């Protein structure tokens, strides 16, 4: 029943503008086998920052009991988190939520992994696991501009990788959807995580495909009790059915929830 521990920080460094790479250790990492799940971090014990911060799992070394998270410094909580040093501890709850279904893609098939901004990190652990299962992976990763780009080499080591920037300062210019079309990328399954407009565009364009989307929503508890992160169910005429992003998701198959 215990899913909470004080994780010890092993390493923390800046890898792109306002993007931090944080590696921690705890025996709880042995439970982190499902890509796409998230961790709920209590930044410190102060009362001014009361709520936990949901951060996706980027990579796990189960054998050495380490987990890597990438996060963007975006407010008071993440700013304070970025000041923590190796040897410090963080109160972490998790793993939480339901991740990407690996079994949706057969050995020998092709999976297209599409990420946007801070939605890119969970695709790395997914890509590693798909690759280990004999799935061919292609990545299309979108960023605002060159200074925001991270993990290009890491993804490239696993499969073909296209970097897209909104201003064209690095890689392809435009949106991830443009690049998928321009490069005429064919695939059997698409897994995606990123801002809602990007997910919505992908859902519209590839509704008939095997598509799994990881949603972001402001959370309270992260365990399904507060009903803060709910979304409507597609086709529900009563408008009362819902899914919780924290416990039913964050990953949903195409067409299940209203974006």
């Amino acid at each position: 029943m215990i899913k909470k521990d004080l994780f010890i920080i092993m390493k923390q460094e800046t890898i792109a503008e306002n993007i931090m790479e944080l590696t921690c250790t705890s025996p709880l990492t042995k439970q982190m086998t499902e890509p796409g799940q998230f961790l709920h971090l209590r930044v410190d014990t102060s009362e001014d920052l009361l709520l936990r911060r949901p951060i996706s799992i980027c990579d796990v070394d189960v054998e050495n009991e380490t987990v890597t998270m990438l996060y963007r410094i975006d407010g008071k909580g993440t700013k304070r988190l970025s000041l923590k040093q190796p040897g410090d501890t963080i109160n972490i709850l998790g793993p939480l939520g339901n991740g990407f279904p690996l079994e949706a893609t057969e050995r020998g098939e092709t999976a297209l992994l599409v990420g946007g901004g801070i939605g890119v990190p969970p695709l790395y652990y997914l890509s590693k696991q798909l690759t280990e299962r004999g799935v061919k992976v292609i990545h299309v990763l979108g960023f605002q501009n060159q200074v925001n780009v991270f993990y290009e080499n890491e993804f490239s080591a696993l499969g073909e990788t296209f970097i897209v920037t909104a201003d064209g300062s690095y890689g392809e210019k435009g949106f991830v959807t443009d690049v998928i079309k321009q490069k005429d990328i064919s695939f059997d399954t698409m897994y995606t995580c990123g801002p809602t407009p990007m997910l919505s565009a992908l859902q519209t364009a590839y509704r008939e495909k095997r598509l799994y989307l990881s949603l972001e929503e402001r959370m309270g508890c992260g365990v399904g009790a507060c009903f803060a992160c709910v979304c409507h169910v597609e086709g529900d005429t009563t408008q009362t059915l819902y899914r919780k992003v924290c416990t039913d998701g964050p990953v949903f198959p195409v067409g299940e929830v209203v974006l």
Partner: protein
Amino acid sequence: MSRLRVELPGLSMRNPVMPASGCFGFGKEYANYFDLELLGAIAIKATTAEARFGNPTPRVAETTAGMLNAIGLQNPGLTGVMQNELPWLNQYNVPIVANVAGTEIDDYVETTAKLSQVENVHAIELNISCPNVKQGGIAFGTIPHVAAELTREVKNVSAVPVYVKLSPNVADIVEIAKAVEAAGADGLSMINTLLGMRIDLKKRKPILANGYGGLSGPAIKPVAIRMIHQVSQAVEIPIIGMGGIQTAEDVVEFMLAGASAVAVGTANFTDPYACPTIINDLTQILDDLEVESVKDLIGGAGKNATSTHNGTRFR
């Protein structure tokens, strides 16, 4: 007899700690984290006559030492709660407090009449103070004679004791408390959230989709303590205290102010193990304070600490 046991109308509690309504769902989520029988009671999420989806998202915003929420009473409705939630909770030997909300008196009466008949519902908590929906009962909770009328109507149909959950968003909470006591309320729950707001600087818009929301967490604790202290000296019925409780020390403070039991809300979101941790720490606090029983704390800081308001009637 356990040092932590308290007895309130309808609620025989092994300890004075229950999760607050709206902060614990219907218990299923937290059953993944600890044994629910550790709790003194469980106040389940508000039930309305019909199922409600609630407000648009974002529904929560962090504040300094607190949070704003505008969930909007999302719940599966009376039928859903009776068919899917309460039978599941029956596997646990814990008193259940069913929180009832509505938009009209008839909603409250219908929902209470049915819910109070369910075997494992030991008390009704009348939600006349939700600030997050246009007709979330707040109109009932701000006018003394209206609150009294609703209480009377609900008491007429309830098979179990009725606790009225009071809003802090009023000029004189004592007046409301006295009115619902006179109308037959068996106890009070206080306080509900304080109406608040936060604004996104870049968007120049409220952070909550609903605009305003209910402030909870340790930021409101002093307000809750003050109101409980005031009300406990003006009424004879027991009070379930709530508002920013995070630790066993907070529980002691609420009981000294006049609460006979407490409910833990936002702390469950910060830490799903908050309730069992608080309960576990309570015995040590009693030792530290050289107090034999939690019952001896009730009303201990009241002006009339030696009168009936010290809680002797509710031991």
